[in-house]
């Protein structure tokens, strides 16, 4: 039934696919060596889709040809970087998570004299403002310090600005209500034309910094680490590195919050944490156990 006068493209052999895989690895190696961004241990399936997507859009016939351009044209690299780093986020993504955080983590945080929170992979900042608002409503913002990090300086700049399209903000307001918000989300932002800008006071205790989970080191003595829907892009080896990094960066009794489809199962470090809320993936670092 193929055909019917329709011009069908040629078959794609296993050899050709194999060759593409090699070329993709070479591209990622080239990016690492020239620009210092390390995607070599990212999850293979999604990297491949992103690279092939950019290949189709750019009109090159092979990944190797595109690699040549990437190496010689910084602007083109930035376009590809945008494809490879996944910057899709929203305020109060998974409202039930924020509700659980409010009910199960906040009461403990209230007993601390100060609170350090690391949001690893904050992208354009929607979730860091979600947390800032939650802390303010719980009377915790004054003694909190929020560290928002991402690999990509461009998205960090956007996160710092805290300006979001108004059409998205309506969805966020709905998430906020479902997350147990006490007021109205519009109390925390000012509308301007077709954008909203987050209130300046929410930014007082937020530090934005670039940090690459694949290559950079411990980010000290945190009480809470939020890293939601970042680890899904990493392969298991890199995941294990990151879990170690989190373990070392967390205070005893500190909380680790993952995305709802992510698991500690493959971390090699499962025993270091106890489960606080399983469906919402909230974990707590255990006290060290004494050897018997």
């Amino acid at each position, binding site marked *: 039934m193929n055909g019917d006068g329709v011009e069908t493209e040629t*078959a794609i052999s296993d050899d050709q696919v194999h060759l593409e895989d090699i070329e993709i690895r070479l591209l990622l190696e080239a990016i690492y060596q020239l620009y210092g961004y390390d995607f070599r241990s990212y999850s293979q*399936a999604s990297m491949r889709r992103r690279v*092939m997507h950019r290949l189709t859009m750019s009109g090159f016939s092979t990944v190797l040809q595109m690699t040549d351009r990437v190496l010689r044209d910084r602007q083109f690299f930035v376009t590809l970087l945008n494809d490879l780093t996944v910057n899709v986020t929203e305020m109060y993504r998974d409202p039930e998570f924020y509700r659980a955080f409010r009910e199960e983590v906040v009461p403990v945080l209230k007993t601390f004299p100060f609170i350090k929170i690391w949001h690893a992979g904050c992208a354009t900042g929607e979730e860091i403002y979600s947390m800032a608002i939650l802390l303010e409503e719980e009377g915790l913002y004054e003694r909190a310090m929020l560290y928002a990090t991402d690999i990509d300086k461009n998205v960090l700049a956007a996160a710092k600005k805290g300006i979001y399209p108004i059409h998205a903000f309506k969805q966020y307001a709905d998430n906020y209500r479902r997350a147990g918000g006490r007021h109205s989300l519009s109390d925390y932002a000012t509308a301007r034309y077709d954008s909203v800008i987050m209130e300046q006071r929410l930014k007082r205790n937020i530090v934005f910094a670039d940090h690459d989970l694949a290559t950079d080191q411990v980010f000290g003595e945190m009480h809470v680490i939020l890293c939601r829907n970042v680890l899904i892009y990493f392969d298991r080896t890199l995941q294990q590195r990151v879990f170690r990094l989190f373990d070392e960066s967390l205070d005893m009794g500190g909380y680790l919050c993952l995305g709802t*489809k992510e698991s500690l199962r493959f971390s090699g470090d499962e025993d270091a944490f106890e489960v606080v809320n399983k469906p919402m993936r909230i974990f707590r670092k255990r006290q060290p156990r004494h050897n018997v």
Partner: protein
Amino acid sequence: MVMGASWGGLNAYSSILSSLPEDFPAAIMLVQHQNASADNRLAWLLSKYCRLPVVAPEDKERIRPGHVYVAPPGYHMLVNVDHTIALTIYRPVHFSRPSIDELFFSAGHVYGRQVLGVILTGANEDGSEGLDYIRRRGGRTLAQSPQSSEAPIMPEAAIAKGAVGEILDLERIGPYLAESLVGLRNEKTEHPGRR
């Protein structure tokens, strides 16, 4: 085996899954366009129609034969070369996340001629490019007939693209899959897709 549907998909999936035997030898991965807040309701619903275990997968979960994996709302579901599931929240494709194209492209890549792609009822064109990729990789491709579809746009788009090998009415699809994949049990090795 990979399947994709949009408008009318729940009916189509329950019809197809209910006619598969409990010793069905292939792993089934399916995408249904749905609202991101729907959570795992679809997997739960479909499990009532299906003798096979229906799974709402976690990231990096191993793909096992005889299991049905339902893409979680708000995530794209892909296949890694090590036969595990990759979930991503990359931007929507054809306004959809999960997107059928995302699943079909990655399954075509990993499984080559050992994949069977099925495009079902739906009201947009998601899936036709991915199905065409499966065809070009030597996989089998199947579409629900437009006249048996609640929304014919999706199968029509795939057919117009020349991506479709066979067209079947909805009530024929389940029995067809059950019959044509039974032979697979004897040919099949531990790791489909690996040469």
